[in-house]
């Protein structure tokens, strides 16, 4: 008898608790304003460093300042995809209800950051390499990433039944994840104008601290921006699903009456 009681009332772990969309919103809503403040503060400090407290590069001059928006957006283009891929696993393996929501909320954000990485990259490429665009491994694979994001957004809009859509999109997302290591290693595999990794290396970063500081601050600023927008979009998506189910009930109610 006591065993029955234990089975029927399992101890709730955080994992189960955040699986309830309403609970998730209630738990994470107080985080939004602190996140907004953190993001704003990081951007203020980052931009001050980027323009007023960092030196020119000895070869590139002032164009090195484009790096402070290019590297963080390029990082996010891949990090957001990783977030989507992990959510896709959560959706397929555990049927976690919030995994679908996280996957859907991240796609437009990822597409925007990827577009920005390409945009800032071409504006940096023109004065330093002499060309806006080159069909090499890094740039082409990043363009493919943008198309994958746009495809995922289009797929979400194509399905009326979002639960069914989520499974198809999760599979598509995981297949598309092959592109991420291709982007990462493209600079080592193929000859390219793009420089190889120069911050996270086994032998340490290849930049002086005066340039690394603004880069890191901007890196965190953009990452916090993504986390804030992702959380807010997830709240909206949860409410949108509630609206859809309520509308369905309203129609059923009208049909029954």
């Amino acid at each position, binding site marked *: 008898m006591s065993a029955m009681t234990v089975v029927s009332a399992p101890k709730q772990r955080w994992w189960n608790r955040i699986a309830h969309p309403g609970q998730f919103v209630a738990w994470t809503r107080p985080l939004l304003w602190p996140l907004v403040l953190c993001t704003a503060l990081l951007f203020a400090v980052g931009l001050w460093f980027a323009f007023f407290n960092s030196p020119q590069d000895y070869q590139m001059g002032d*164009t090195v300042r484009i790096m402070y*928006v290019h590297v963080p957006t390029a990082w996010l283009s891949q990090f957001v995809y990783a977030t989507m891929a992990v959510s896709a696993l959560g959706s397929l393996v555990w049927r976690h209800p919030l995994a679908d929501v996280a996957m859907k909320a991240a796609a*437009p954000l990822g597409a925007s950051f990827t577009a920005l990485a390409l945009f800032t990259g071409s*504006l940096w490429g023109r004065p330093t390499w002499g060309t806006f665009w080159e069909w090499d491994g890094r740039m082409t694979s990043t363009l493919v990433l943008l198309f994958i994001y746009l495809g995922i957004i289009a797929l979400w809009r194509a399905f009326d039944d979002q639960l069914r859509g989520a499974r198809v999109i999760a599979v598509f997302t995981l297949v598309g994840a092959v592109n991420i290591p291709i982007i990462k290693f493209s600079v080592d595999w193929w000859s390219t104008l793009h420089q190889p990794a120069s911050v996270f290396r086994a032998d340490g970063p290849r930049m002086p601290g005066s340039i690394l500081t603004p880069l890191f601050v901007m890196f965190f600023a953009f990452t916090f921006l993504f986390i804030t927008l992702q959380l807010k979009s997830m709240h*909206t998506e949860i409410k949108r699903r509630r*609206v859809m189910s309520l509308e369905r009930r309203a129609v059923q109610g009208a049909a029954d009456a």
Partner: protein
Amino acid sequence: MIDLGPHALFIVSAYCGVALVVAALIGWTLLDARRTERRLADLEARGIRRRSAGPAA
């Protein structure tokens, strides 16, 4: 404003483009949130509630 050298146009365009897209993302996120909340409030005002929320008052 500090002197950005001969490629100032590229640097300023890059930052302006990023600012524009980030502002649009924030605006769209807030607009979408407001629109969805209004629809939800509208449905609840009409007495349509989830079963878990109990009968309409």
